[in-house]
């Protein structure tokens, strides 16, 4: 009763088609963005930014990418780590070969290359479905990592096999490399993530998103009404790989500073899959919520015993942390299999009725 969304009428098509038609949503998102831009960099410590906020944003982007593929287009894929690696290594090659090009442009180019690679590895999706496709995408995961390990050209023949982010500037401020401060990197990441999340939201509202959802729900029926399944699936793979490649590039250049192939191993693929399942398949907000959960929870669990004043041997602590993580995943799935996004929806539904119970 107090939270009323009613009475908001639109008088132009543009207003009706806006991404956040309800003014409460608009306010909420604006406040969140304002806090993220102005409050967090000022108040948060370097550790908080470096260990929590930046990876959260980067993985949200990767989660959005995977959500487009799995949640909207219904193609189960476990090759996320490989595509992130493509983005990272291609950025490294391009920026070391052409140091003068703005690093953001390089990110986008690397994303395009990742999209192309994703397109190729998405070809089996016409024949293979379900878990078979998931395991088949593992082929792309392992092959890409093997290639980046083996072919020395990718890491400029240096003996360590790692790629390091060279210092790059934008508008006179250093944004990559060890000299870049955590706040600057955080702000750049935030901008990129907001822009691309917005693009993703619009993609899924449009014709492309609807064709993805049609293919997901019933691909034979979709084919009958004229949606071309092969093209649709391939575009899903391409767009998803673009996002994953972009987030991989950001991971190395704006967060870690350097990486070897181990940073993109199958654990990352599973991590991003967790994020979208816990966050909610088929939901952009869900990607953010899931990333918060998966990135924040281990840090919370690691620091919790100290906060409570409990001192435990560190390996016991780690074991309990792992067990708790696993149990919480199971618990979440039992209680809300549609993810945190669904919980958010239910919360808003309850809010509309509040303070009445029904």
């Amino acid at each position, binding site marked *: 009763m107090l939270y009323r969304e009613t009475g908001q009428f639109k008088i132009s098509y543009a207003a009706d088609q806006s991404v956040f038609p309800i003014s409460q949503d608009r306010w909420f998102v604006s406040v969140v963005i304002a806090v993220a831009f102005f409050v967090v960099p000022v108040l948060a410590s370097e550790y908080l930014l470096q260990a929590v906020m930046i990876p959260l944003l980067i993985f949200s982007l990767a989660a959005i990418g995977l959500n487009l593929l799995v949640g909207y287009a219904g193609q189960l894929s476990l090759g996320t780590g490989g595509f992130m690696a493509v983005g990272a290594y291609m950025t490294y090659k391009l920026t070391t070969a052409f140091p003068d090009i703005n690093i953001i442009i390089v990110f986008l180019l690397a994303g395009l290359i990742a999209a192309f690679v994703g397109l190729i590895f998405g070809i089996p999706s016409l024949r293979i*479905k379900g*878990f078979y496709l998931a395991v088949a995408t593992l082929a792309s995961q392992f092959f890409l990592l093997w290639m980046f390990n*083996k072919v020395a050209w990718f890491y400029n023949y240096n003996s360590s096999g790692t790629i390091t982010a060279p210092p790059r500037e934008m508008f006179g401020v250093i944004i990559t490399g060890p000299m870049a401060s955590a706040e600057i990197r955080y702000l750049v990441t935030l901008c990129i993530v907001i822009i691309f999340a917005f693009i993703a939201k619009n993609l899924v509202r449009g014709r492309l998103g609807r064709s993805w959802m049609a293919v997901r729900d019933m691909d034979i029926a979709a084919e009958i009404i004229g949606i071309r399944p092969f093209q649709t699936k391939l575009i899903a793979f391409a767009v998803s790989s673009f996002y994953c490649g972009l987030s991989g590039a950001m991971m190395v250049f704006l967060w870690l500073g350097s990486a070897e192939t181990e940073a993109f191993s199958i654990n990352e693929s599973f991590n991003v899959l967790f994020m979208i399942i816990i966050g909610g398949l088929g939901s952009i907000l869900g990607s953010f919520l899931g990333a918060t959960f998966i990135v924040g929870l281990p840090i919370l669990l690691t620091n919790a015993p100290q906060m409570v004043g409990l001192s435990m041997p560190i390996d016991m602590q780690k074991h309990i942390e*792992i*067990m708790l993580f*696993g149990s919480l995943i199971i618990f979440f*799935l*039992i209680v809300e*299999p549609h993810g945190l996004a669904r919980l958010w929806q239910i919360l808003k539904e309850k809010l509309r009725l509040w303070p009445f119970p029904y």
Partner: protein
Amino acid sequence: MEIINFLNLVFVAPIEDMVFYPIFFTEVVISGLLTGIMYSLVALGFVLIFKASGVFNFAQGAMVLFAALNLVGFIEQGFPIWLALVLAIVVMIILAFLIERFMLRYLINQEDIILFMATIGLTFFLQGFGEMLWGSNVKPLDLGIPNQSFEVGGVLLNEFDLFAAGSGAILVGVLAVFFHYTRIGRALRAVADDHQAAMAVGIPLKTIWIIVWSVAGFVGLVAGIMWGAKSGVQFSLSLIALKALPVLILGGFTSVPGAIVGGLIIGVGEKIAEIYWGPLVGGAIENWFAYVLALAFLLFRPQGLFGERIIERV
């Protein structure tokens, strides 16, 4: 000239190698077959659970590790080997019971991917729990299985590998007989076919699931013994699941003979690729080659070699 050189290297030289050194080729093939059976041992656990409960149990790798850890832990505590084996089996049965009670029951009608994720959560839990109980050190596993190598016609064979292959074959045989000729086996096949119908004729779903997960746990224990004797029981044992996945998709998720045939194909294919074509590209291609091989088969049979045909209705 370059092209001819390249073609020669890729297509002619390896074949020549295989033909002119047949003894070594036989050794490679046999070793591939033996490795393949070891992979199938792990894949069997996946197949059993998928057949009966429709769950792609990613935790099978962790179950292999957990079972082996329990066994070695009991032996370290001083129990005689036979008692430790029995206790390890009992622990797996209790684990199956707990999984059914606290996880499967609440996820009955959920989508496949939710169940898959839940098993990944279970993987974490088992890894942490196993290490917490028994420690993270590597533990040697020696059950007195003979380990000598001997030569037969120039081909080197190892008693242990043969023993492992033999037990794998016996296990598959026993399971096949079990599924076809016993009452419980028939009940399992009924449940695999249609949960609702099976319940309608009075088959208790809960009990069946506990039985299946226990059998998968037992298969995991056998796999854990075979792999653990090679490398000592340690965390990396749970990563064997990743090597068994290509076997699974090649053979089909729902077929026990498929797991064996798939394992043999993957094992041989992997070894041949690594030894004859690996050096051309710098080696270590086994991992992704297995997946690419399985993928190639899948393109022709999307449900795996022996899997159930996927029938889609509009």
